[in-house]
């Protein structure tokens, strides 16, 4: 995970009963992308963060926030 970045993607995806593959299809990215973002291995671009937030129906600040 990037230092100081809190990521709630896994929780929000689970709340909506979506698999990684299902969310990936909704966003139009690979399952690998969703997996790496969830695991904190990869910090997404602004565009991808916005797409993820839109697919989950929440503001991007709910999905990603700073740990301060």
């Amino acid at each position, binding site marked *: 995970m990037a230092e100081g970045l809190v990521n709630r993607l896994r929780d929000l995806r689970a709340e909506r009963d979506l698999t990684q*593959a299902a969310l*990936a*299809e909704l966003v*139009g*990215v*690979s*399952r*690998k*992308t969703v*997996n*790496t973002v969830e*695991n904190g*291995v*990869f910090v*997404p*671009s602004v565009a*991808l963060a916005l797409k993820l937030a839109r697919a989950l129906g929440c503001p991007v600040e709910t999905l990603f926030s700073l740990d301060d």
Partner: protein
Amino acid sequence: MPTSAEHELADRLTRRRARMMPALAALFLAGQPFYFARNQIAIDTQIKTAVWLAWAAILLLALAMDGGHFRGRAVRDLVEDEVTRANRLRAYAAGFWAAMATVFGIYGLSVFDNIQGRESLHLIMTFSLAAALITFGMLEKRALRDG
């Protein structure tokens, strides 16, 4: 938007590529004794050099080129996602540092032994390419790992 079938195909291609890259690097490294074996294997030096250069060029293209060719734009975009592009950049960086380490090694060795220019280039290319391929494969494998 890509279909489920395109997603599955892209996933398969990505996994295959992640397995292939380190395997190709291992094969490339394993072939080096043939290049450096002097007077033991009756193959002309020019042929050995040409074969090695062709092999290195193929590997370089495999590393640099987008995956998912001939499978359509949607599959290609999925195979070449943000994560893959970032992993490739990190692999290039690993190749650069491997090249620098090899250069330092060659400078060190040249104090004790006379190393030819072609041999130096061969070593730099071999270790930097192998490092980049292995790094890319490992990063892609890690990205595919669940949890």
